[in-house]
């Protein structure tokens, strides 16, 4: 959800208003398969309160988030910062996060500071405003649209 906020607010709106897509986008489906496969031995997909969906955790202190490419790095960083924030609000302190790019053999460490927390709170309010709006945000008309599973719904 936090990720969608940075990538496409329209997708965020659809998603939160329960218009979800069967993955008719090949890119999305392949991405999902790669992440299922890559970290088989770790505990995967920890869904907490139907709100955050952590790819997996190691040592009870480090959240891992798997991504196919680093082209959306900023969004990914905010996504995991939000996870840390959320856990902190629920009494789980001192959590760190790592972005994993198995295909690129790259990892990025992420931590949460005071400024980030304020920023997250602002964004959360903004998200609520967006999804409650009767009118959905407009199309972003970007080159990433063609690979999105919402492409046909958005552009028809």
């Amino acid at each position, binding site marked *: 959800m936090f990720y969608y906020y940075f990538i496409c607010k329209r997708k965020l709106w659809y998603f939160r*208003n*329960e*218009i*979800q897509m*069967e993955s008719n986008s090949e890119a999305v489906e392949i991405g999902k398969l790669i992440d299922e496969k890559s970290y088989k031995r770790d505990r995967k997909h920890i869904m907490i309160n139907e709100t955050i969906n952590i790819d997996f955790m190691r040592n009870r202190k480090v959240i891992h988030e798997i991504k196919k490419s680093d082209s959306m790095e900023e969004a990914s960083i905010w996504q995991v910062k939000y996870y840390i924030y959320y856990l902190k609000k629920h009494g789980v302190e001192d959590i760190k996060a790592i972005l994993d790019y198995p295909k690129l053999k790259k990892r990025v460490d992420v931590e949460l500071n005071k400024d980030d927390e304020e920023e997250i709170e602002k964004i959360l309010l903004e998200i609520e405003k967006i999804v409650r709006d*009767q*009118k*959905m945000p407009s199309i972003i008309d970007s080159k990433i649209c063609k690979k999105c599973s919402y*492409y*046909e*719904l958005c*552009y*028809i």
Partner: protein
Amino acid sequence: MKNTYYLLKNGELRRKDNNLIVKACDGSEKVIPIETVKEIYIMGEVNVNSKLMTFLSQNSIILHFFNYYGFYSGSYYPKEKLVSGSLLVKQVEHYRSKEKRVELAREVLKSASYNIKRNLRYYNERGRDLEDEIKTIKNLRKHLDRQNEINELMGVEGNIREGYYRAWNKIVNQDINFEKRVKHPPDNMINSLLSYVNSLVYTTVLSEIYHTQLNPTISFLHEPSTKRFSLSLDIAEIFKPILGERMIFSLLNKNMINEDSFEKEMNSLYLKDSARKVILQKYDSRLKQRIRHKVLKKNVSYRYLIRLECYKIIKHILGEKNYEGFKIWW
């Protein structure tokens, strides 16, 4: 790639090794790779059990059943995977508000009748003189804009179809003697063909609706849920001319279907098994035919045009973009 399967033989459809297997009464059998199945048409007498149904449900596969005479008997519509409460509420609102309902119903008929007119024009350009019929339909289409009651719209639609059907005697180069639509039971070749082909279009539309959040029972042109998934009836109106009727003309004019394709029983005509197979094969390849979509700028199948129609209705219902029905653009 998900495909449609057509089971024409009598026998049994079972789950085996997390896969599907058909065992026909004649001893032959076929494995259907589960990952490749979108829907299954059961045209013969086939036994199924609840273990199979559960498995199909897990894989979001719809079954369409037809009886001995080739009449549609019903579909197994598995538990829905895509549900949106907020969309459903709005879909209902578009039925409850007369103004909103009429707006959608009218657009359905406008695109359906446009596609009918397009069929006539196609044959007019190929040596049939259909100028009068085209003119009549053009005028009737204008009436659609003036009607503000569902039954009035339906009335205009009836008149359009009447004029359209009259033209069939000129389009088809066999002696079909087609006067009017008779359904229960079909009394001549054309009526029998129409019943069969319309039920194919209806079931295809139903399968596409299943893969969206739309509720198949809440419709706008037809009265909701009188016996059938009536939203499917609505959307089928738009696609009958291109998927069904154009195919019927071609089957008849190429003599792939003729008098010998039917069996007479009492006062009705039924399609023979062999003829049903000819139609299904033609229909299947028609659904797979691809066309360049001018808005999406990519190739889409005729079948996918139906899915896109569902998306347009969703956008209309959500108040994003006014619904404009599909009109043949090529």
